[in-house]
């Protein structure tokens, strides 16, 4: 099963198996990885599951998957500012679906998902 490594804002890494077809937000929630809220459950409504794709993975993962994801991310730029250079790789983790090609994916998690 593909593995995702979540690195929290203190730098602590947690590796989790996430099945193909499942998304990176649920991978965190089902395995009690802190740092992702995922309030709306993947409806593109809440923007509380943002993550920063590690530089080594941005090409494979790609940018926002939809107009809606881009609009929601535009609303959290203030929160992103605290994350420095990583902010350029921001995605909503519910919109990253696992594929075999993403085995080994590394994402960084913000200090907070909302104020």
């Amino acid at each position, binding site marked *: 099963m593909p593995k995702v490594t979540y690195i929290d804002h203190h730098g602590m890494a947690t590796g989790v198996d996430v099945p193909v077809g499942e998304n990176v937000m649920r991978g965190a929630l089902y395995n*009690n990885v802190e740092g992702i809220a995922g*309030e709306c*459950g993947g*409806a593109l*409504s*809440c923007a509380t599951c943002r993550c920063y794709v590690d530089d080594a993975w941005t090409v494979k993962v790609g940018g926002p998957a939809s107009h*809606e994801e881009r*609009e929601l991310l535009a609303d959290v730029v203030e929160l992103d500012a605290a994350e420095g250079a990583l902010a350029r790789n921001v995605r909503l983790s519910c919109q990253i679906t696992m594929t075999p090609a993403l085995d080994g994916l590394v994402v960084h998690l913000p200090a907070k998902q909302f*104020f």
Partner: protein
Amino acid sequence: MTIDPAHPVPPVLPRFAGPEQIPPHVPKALVRSIGLTVGEAFLAAPHDFMARLHETMPPIFYDVNEFCNAWQLIKHEDALFALRHPEFFSNEGATPFPRDPDDYFYFIPIEIDPPAHRKYRNIVDPIFSPQGVLKLEGLIRQRANDLLDEFVDKGECEFTTAFGRPLPVSVFLDIMGLPQDMRDTFVQWAVNLLHSNDRATMAEAMKVITAYLKQAIAEKKAHPDEGVVSRIAHAAPDGVPLSDKEVFGFVIFIFIGGLDTVFATLNNIWLWLAQNPERVQEIIDRPADINAIVEELLRRWSVTFSGRVVAQDVEMRGVQMKKGDRVTSILPACNFDPEVFPNPLDVDFDRPRKTILAFTVGVHSCMGGHLARLELKIALQEWLKRIPRFTVKPGAKITYRPGGVVGPKAVPLVW
């Protein structure tokens, strides 16, 4: 105090009601009695009433009424804060349903604060996730068309009983693994529980629902199936089976949360569609935008409220709230906050996407939200395919049900 979900005890929280029971820390200037969900002005046009609160009320005020005095939040930002900070705004004891104190149970997971609530959500989230509910798409389309078959040639129907009521309840029964012949009985129970506005009727409804569900759970324990009742009855998070109290509290909560809300949402939306044929045409002309259309309709026609109990003293906008105070987010009003949604009463399918509060936010965000979105989408698509033009029956007078789920009593349509 952290509660033990397996061993429920009635909360000892004070419940204040009426003008004689206003705590001394509540400033007189913030006290109002707006008749939310029951007053004449509210019932005349509930959503307009809730939108107007932004002009007529302070952003946070203290409503005094005969059921439960509480702080009221109407700003989008304030509701997001309250719903996202369980350390200040707890769900324990915040659900105002009468229960037998000698056979007490918690509504699960709504009355369980984090982190304990997550283990319950993990049991059912896979079924209610976007991918999970998509498996039901074909069945929901079929059920919608079966209902349409019954009245499409008649040229008229009473929407709430012909479609708005039976569609979500049938789908719900399928998901739960409960028999379809219970459909109308379930609806009547829910109406008595949520709309009677009478504590004795509510208590009686609770009694019959309790007896039925306990028997259904016992049956699923003996004969497991794929339904949600069975899944909960057999769940064992971290290897520990749920107690009887947890199973019951979980099943009855889904029953209450899932039965009436989609029903009311559809009724509100179909009334608006019938009054706005040019907007119906717009929906028909923009099939690729159906998801944005659904989201905007859910914003404009949210149907419910979200209650909390203050867990530790907190200040919002200079207002002091004390531990034990009750707080209600008036979700439809928050969706009409003009600072977030300009011209809030306009239905605009091209609004930039913002967090809507139809399903609340925070850890207790509605688990059925994806199902509700899918049902609304399919209902729109299938109905408009077969009845693209319809209006409210001439002479029909629209009135609203009092209670915590907002919608018209009846919506007579002709085409």
